[in-house]
């Protein structure tokens, strides 16, 4: 123990911020791709596919991310697939994101009026053409604010990767705290750094929402 908080400690925390961003980006990119798949399945014409994907979403949303992380990290390790912490955290966050993003995007796709589907069918567009050219451009507008909002959720969730030993911001703060034992200061700084990452995104999400709701905005 001993010593005071120096610039080196701060730089170490900043390095943690870098890894937090890398992990968030990885989780969001992979989760986005998988989430798109989940959305497709959730809105599929086959009732079986819809039901299976519904179960998947319920299952993932009904278990804590921490448990998911342990299942991936320890579980796959036992089966003989040794994953480095970054990949284990990335994979579990991907699964987590896919369920939430898939469900958010399903809501957005379904909020596009049915008549748009019918009109496209009348124009003899295939289902894929309808989706890509007609539905998604409209759904994307609706989907942007909640997706940005979820990005905040992802950023915060990456803090759990610290428990499998991946040195992102939370883990870095723990390491620094273990040597200095000034928890208010160290975790306070880590909190401020997280806040600096998340708050602009939250604000952005809210302003997007306001812009989108311009027609329904109440004159208060």
């Amino acid at each position, binding site marked *: 123990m001993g010593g005071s908080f120096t610039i080196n400690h701060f730089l170490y925390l900043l390095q943690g911020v870098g890894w937090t961003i890398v992990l968030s980006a990885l989780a969001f990119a992979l989760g986005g791709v998988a989430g798109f798949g989940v959305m497709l399945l959730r809105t599929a014409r086959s009732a079986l596919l819809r039901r299976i994907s519904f179960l998947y979403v319920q299952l993932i949303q009904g278990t804590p991310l921490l448990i998911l992380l*342990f299942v991936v990290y320890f579980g796959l390790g036992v089966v003989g697939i040794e994953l480095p912490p970054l990949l284990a955290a990335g994979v579990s966050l991907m699964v987590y994101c896919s369920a939430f993003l898939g469900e958010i995007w399903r809501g957005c796709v379904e909020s596009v009026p049915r008549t748009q589907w019918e009109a496209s069918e009348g124009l003899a567009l295939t289902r894929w053409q309808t989706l890509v050219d007609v539905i998604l451009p409209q759904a994307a507008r609706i989907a942007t604010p909640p997706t940005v909002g979820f990005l905040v959720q992802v950023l915060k969730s990456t803090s759990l990767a610290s428990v499998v030993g991946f040195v992102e911001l939370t883990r870095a703060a723990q390491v620094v705290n273990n040597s200095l034992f000034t928890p208010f200061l160290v975790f306070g700084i880590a909190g401020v750094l997280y806040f600096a990452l998340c708050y602009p995104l939250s604000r952005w999400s809210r302003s997007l929402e306001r812009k989108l709701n311009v027609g329904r905005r109440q004159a208060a």
Partner: protein
Amino acid sequence: MKYTFDFASLQEYWPEFLRGALMTLEMTAIATVLGMVIGVLCAIGRRGKRPWLAALCGAYVEVVRNTPYLIQIFFIFFGLASAGLKLPIFAAAILTMVFNVGAYTAEIVRAGMDTIHPGQIEAAEALGLSVPQIYWDVILRPSLERVYPSLTGQFVLMMLSSSVTSQISAEELTGVANSVQSESFRSFETFIVVAVLYFLMAMLLKFAFFLVGQAMFPRRRRLGTPL
């Protein structure tokens, strides 16, 4: 590589899993009630006429919503300990849960309050209702009825994220899982069992909230829709 699942060896730990699950539910129940109180007070504070109180409540909500729960736990638990205040782990875990969920509740309740048309409040004032009456009968009850689904969803999410309190060695379900897997060396099976338990608890909680909602909001029960 071949791996044979062995769930049978976990059977002897069943009472411990159960104890952990009950602990999680207990923590969730306490944090739901206290978080609800904090959230409602905070939402009222944000609407109130005192700018400093509104700013304070707003800052609390933004800080909690934009920092990870794990950091909040470490900050509160280790921070208080370093300041000489050693809370029992159970109390510390609940304190962090209330601190966390209070802010989310405040935001949801505030959104509900914003849906109350100003004319309703003016009408209540014209009828000579007192301020507590207006807040309770005209603002709070209808707005809680409207946001009930998102509120309960948030409480279910809190139950799930309470698993994080295992990091300050709270003996809830995840904490139990950690000690079981280190004793039995069956980590994969242990966490699968625990995942299933959490899933069942989430379903149970949703059902319980549904029943509470049916009892609390008779209009919702009769019409099948909120206001």
